[in-house]
């Protein structure tokens, strides 16, 4: 065998190992993202190395900061568990927001107004329930209900404008973002402002969706009720899209609205319904953010998690389970960055670089899948040839 052929063989062995690791098509939706996240960390390592720091140490600190690994020491009433619970608390609005984006994407719509819908839902829940003296048994469900109604109505309105007047949902939701941001800021400044913090006044704990400073086993923990609801709803949503008739119709309209119309699906109605559903999840993101993770509203500011949700939804491949995983990873990087920067001396922004890189790589996942198939076919073909010879 010639030298060239030997080289080819070697290359093939390497390829075969990679192919084996990435598994068959059934598992690729899982193995490819993991492979890509791994690649992003390698790329980030190179950057950290070039700054003269130890990347493994930095990643270790990142996980410590997020509550995945134990820190060397903790302040009083704190432990790895409390850090981990804060991570879940931080993650909750992100899951809801990403699910909201994913629902719209499934229906072929782009809900860039998640932030505005969050703010509207958070505002109404705050002024109606947050400042009331209601008992928590009534207050907490009412907060959720108001989030659902406010988000659903605004989402539905955007869908209706698209259906009735053919106004692009991206344009109308950006405009609603502005309107809500400034109109609500006017009301907050006029009636609900706390002069010291320059934010809206704190809400009563009875209305909060996160139980703060719960004392248990000598620890003070923040327990997110919203997180449990988010996980349950993600599972329900997955079933909804996989098995229900309406989920099928939403997907059909999203994949090909002309084809859906031809099949007899009422496209306009389905579009409005999609946006109502998406708005409901935005509303839940809003109440778990403003009445859960926070307890007040910062005027004139849209929550950035509404926009991060777009990226997370794409990273999770608009699959609810994927979104839980993606939110988890992005939250770890966000939450761990402060600790990493103080311990490893790596700037906090490196965390954003890693996030950016993960998103960039995940945009290539279809390409990678294609390459794997092409590679497998050519290997099979060559094996066939060799057998023939």
């Amino acid at each position, binding site marked *: 065998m010639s030298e060239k052929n030997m080289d080819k063989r070697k290359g093939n062995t390497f390829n075969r190992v990679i192919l084996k690791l990435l598994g068959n098509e059934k598992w690729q939706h899982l193995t490819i993202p993991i492979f890509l996240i791994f690649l992003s960390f390698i790329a980030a390592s190179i950057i950290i190395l070039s700054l003269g720091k130890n990347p493994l140490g930095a990643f270790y600190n990142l996980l410590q900061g997020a509550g995945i690994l134990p820190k060397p020491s903790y302040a009083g009433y704190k432990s790895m568990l409390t850090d981990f619970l804060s991570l879940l608390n931080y993650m909750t609005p992100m899951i809801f927001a990403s699910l909201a984006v994913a629902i719209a994407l499934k229906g072929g719509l782009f809900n860039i107004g998640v932030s505005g819908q969050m703010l509207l839902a958070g505002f109404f829940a705050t002024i109606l329930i947050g400042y009331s003296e209601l008992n928590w048994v009534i207050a907490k469900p009412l907060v959720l209900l108001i989030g659902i109604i406010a988000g659903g109505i605004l989402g539905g309105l955007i869908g209706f404008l698209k259906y009735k007047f053919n106004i692009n949902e991206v344009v109308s939701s950006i405009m609603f973002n502005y309107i809500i941001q400034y109109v609500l800021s006017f009301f907050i400044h006029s009636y609900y402002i706390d002069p010291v913090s320059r934010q809206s006044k704190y809400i009563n704990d009875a209305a909060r969706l996160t139980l703060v400073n719960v004392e248990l086993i000598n620890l003070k923990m923040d327990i997110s009720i919203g997180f449990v609801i988010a996980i349950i709803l993600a599972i329900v949503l997955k079933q909804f899209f996989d098995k229900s008739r*309406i989920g099928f119709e939403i997907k059909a309209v999203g994949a090909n609205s002309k084809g859906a119309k031809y*099949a007899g699906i009422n496209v306009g109605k389905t579009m409005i319904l999609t946006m109502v559903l998406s708005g409901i999840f935005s509303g839940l993101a809003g109440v778990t953010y403003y009445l859960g993770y926070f307890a007040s509203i910062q005027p004139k500011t849209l929550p950035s998690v509404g926009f991060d949700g777009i990226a997370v939804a794409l990273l999770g491949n608009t699959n609810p389970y994927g979104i839980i995983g993606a939110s988890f990873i992005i939250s770890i990087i966000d939450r761990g960055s402060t600790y990493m920067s103080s311990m490893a001396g790596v700037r906090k922004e490196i965390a954003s670089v890693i996030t950016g890189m993960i998103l960039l790589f995940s945009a290539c996942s279809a390409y990678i899948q294609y390459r794997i198939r092409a590679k497998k076919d050519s290997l099979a073909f060559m094996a066939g040839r060799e057998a023939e010879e």
Partner: protein
Amino acid sequence: MYEYIVEMRNITKRFPGIVANDNITIQIKKGEIYAILGENGAGKSTLMSILFGMYEPDEGEIWIRGERVKILSPNHAAKLNIGMVHQHFKLVHNYTVTENIILGMEPIRKLGGLIPYVDIKGANKNIAELSKKYGLQVDPTQKIEDMNVSLQQRVEILKMLYREAEILIFDEPTALLTPQETDYLLDIIEELRKGGKTIILISHKLEEIKRVADRCAILRKGKLIDVLDVKETSTKTMANLMVGREVSLEIEKKPAKFGPVVLEVDNLRVKNQEKVEVVKNVSFKIHKGEVFAIAGVAGNGQVEIADAIAGLTEIDGGSIKLNGVDISKYSIRERTIEGISYIPEDRQSYGLILDFSLGENLALKDYYKEPFCHKGVLNKDAINEYGNKLIEKYDIRSSLGVNTQVRQMSGGNQQKAIVAREIELDSPLMIFVQPTRGLDIGAIENIRKMIIEERDKGKAILLVSLELDEIMSIADTIGIIFNGEIQKIAPAEELTTKEVGEYMMGVTA
């Protein structure tokens, strides 16, 4: 000197899951009309895309004018004087003929020797001369969006000639043309050959190849079957070699037995999106057991009639009665339930949801009914079981059965899936728009047979087709449309192909 102007030696090209070209060698002489014949998916277009620099072959060599070359891009191919007219034209619609032709190689002049500008006037003149030379009449200042398909094709040909192409590749050039336009194009191709050009004609239409080509390479499933001298070969032999078995397009048809009227269209008027009336006071009736065909040049309102009956387009006036019930206000789904099957012209954007599985697409019109859906929850098992039944009955081929993503399937099998789904609806009225467009002979034969079978079962069939052969061979009644108006309705036996062609052009008023 070289013996062959184009030589492709041992070309192999693989795509995931398929070997599109398997060790193919073709040799083309200068000044020859060389046809490449094969069914859909035989690898014709892939082979030519390799020659045009759109794909790189996995194995094999290309020799142009006796020199070995690697063609890296279409631009590179253009430098080697290779031009291609694609099946789907690549023109900028709101540009004029001249602007389209010079795009990418604009003649630049300098105003006062300083300020550069594009010399449109000069280009207009050059193009007018060029079009005169080859008999390709076009107005260089006309915009593409105002031209019909046949004229647009002329622009594509001029574009190649303007770029001094000597090897001209035509990819299924007559797929969208009327018989008269086809004749005209074939004349031009012969004219070009006289002008010293070498022509490669990709086609699956045997009559055309028989008429103009010198030699013909036959491809089947990615392999070169034979290269034949066209003059000495019968079309029958070519057809059999292409399909790999005996085929016949002569449909055996029993005389029709008309029953009562199923569809009655009365004074139908339809406006398009620009509010132009495209269907003008059209009336006709279709009986049980009748194939009623609408013949016409593309874009004369026939598709709008079909869309209006199926409910995809709103009507502007008139009535549509199905079994005596006026359905013109019904929703699409209500009409389907009332009894309409519809095979739309555009199978990829209307007929199917390409990202969905084959099973889901086969149930696309029934998914909401029992047993596929129970209390709002879909029953995947029932859907797949039904899908498997249809796949077997209609011989729909795919790699993963019901789980295949329809996008991955070939055009012919996609069409089979639509036909299967619509026929299984068992509707009293079946609308077929261009049911065999772009299909190969084997599939055409099958679909035409199915249409006749359905007719014999007592269905009323509305057929819209641009293929006159198809209309003449299966229709019982022909209505000819021109400019949105029905020119003539007559039993098929009473009309000749020539007469129908004349009505289609609006010649006989």
